[in-house]
């Protein structure tokens, strides 16, 4: 896979959210090129831009497994190809 993927994580803040997500990505040879994150009123909101060009993992599996990682820590994790955001917000 060559395209950039946007991973969003939303949910109640707790210890180790970034660690768990990043561990999963590292284990699957997926590079993180940007992270931004806010916490408002105990609510965790993060976006990562990741580059899956070295991973063997198909998009479907990545999406499902990241969802499972999220479930384990009680947050909602989404994986979307970045074009939807680029198309909508860039002329």
């Amino acid at each position, binding site marked *: 896979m060559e395209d950039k993927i946007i991973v*969003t994580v939303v949910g109640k803040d707790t210890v180790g959210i970034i660690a768990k997500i990043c561990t999963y990505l590292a284990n699957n040879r997926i590079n993180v090129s940007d992270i931004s994150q806010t916490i408002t009123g105990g609510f965790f909101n993060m*976006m990562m831009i990741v580059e899956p060009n070295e991973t063997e993992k198909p*998009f479907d599996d990545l999406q499902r497994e990241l969802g499972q990682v999220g479930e384990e820590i009680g947050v909602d994790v989404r994986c*979307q190809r970045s074009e*939807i955001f680029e198309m909508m*917000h860039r002329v």
Partner: protein
Amino acid sequence: MINLYEVNETNKMIEQENLDVRTITIGISLLDCMDADLDRLCDKVYDKITTVAKDLVQTGADIEKEFGIPIVNKRISVTPIAMIGAAACRSAQDYVRLAKTLDQAAATVGVNFIGGYSALVSKGMTTQDEYLIRSIPEALSATNNVCSSVNVGSTKHGINMDAVRLLGDVIHDTAEQTKEADSIGCAKLVVFCNAPDDNPFMAGAFHGVSEADAVIHVGVSGPGVVKTALSQVRGESFEVLCETIKKTAFKVTRVGQLVAKEASKRLSIPFGIIDLSLAPTPAIGDSVADILHEIGVEYAGAPGTTAALALLNDQVKKGGIMASSYVGGLSGAFIPVSEDQGMIDAVEAGALTLEKLEAMTCVCSVGLDMIAIPGDTPVTTIAGIVADEMAIGMINQKTTAVRLIPVIGKGIGESVEFGGLLGYAPIMPVNSFGCADFVNRTGRIPAPVHSFKN
């Protein structure tokens, strides 16, 4: 680089404001299937549709998953069947066989509607056109997924009043034949003036003869997104209002453009057009009437509604047109009654009448859409309503359409439940004065003077 705010904005539109791609529609030409033998014709039609569209549903589902944007419908439109069956069909019954073939093909590939059981008769009807039109009631009651449309007028040709009169009967018979299911057959039948060749939206989609062998059209939606954006600018000037609608329409359309290009690439079928429509659903918040309310009218139908709708329709086009390389179809705001909770509320509050809806169709992209009327409405009155709407389209050089549902066995004060995307509708009163002497005149209304441009 994309930032957190932008990502959140997009995902909020999808999750909370019902942003979706309403339909990916493959238009398929059946011209090369024509045959004088009905059996062979049906086989060829079935084979072509199930070959060209075999991956449509799966591809739609893949795109939906990867981009995280719901794609509500995957559909097919075909060349008007009156033409395709012209050499093989010797009766209305023969055309019904073709309708059943379309229905089977749609079921095989898993699409929820197939459009194009159609005839284009704006200037005159061939014998076969008439067979097809007369077969519509049976075709729509004997099939699940087939949608039918008839183009009875255009700015270039005038209005074929013989066809309008015939369709008064056909609409009534379709209602009669599907009366067990609240006359739902009529929800799959559209009468057009100036029908576009590349409309991806049902029930009026067909694949025009000027189109390529197969082509992908995408219909976008997003009334909820526009409404939410407008709720941030309450009390502001018209300039701010219009800018907000334009910017939102741009964003919504860009998503459609992305999906269309992606589907086109994966299916190896050329991209046709994006239809920039605000298409409501019965879901709360997914309503064009709610946008009109947000613009400032108490209910859709109140004085000011036509102006508000005109403004909305125009700004949607202005915003959307820059977002896509090719725009076509109906493009504008849809104002169906049963498919829009805000419209239903307006009818129930007594704010919205059939006559006001007719006025609103002068400035928006479609026509009298999904309107339930009493089942005992005379067929000449139905034809009269159709003729009025066709005249609006002909004179204003725009598409207009009629999708009326005379609900057999029900009257004013009752309502009808279609279910799903078709929603429910209170039965609306119809002007009870007659027009039989008008619609019983034969022939056609000539093309208007401004059509002579050569």
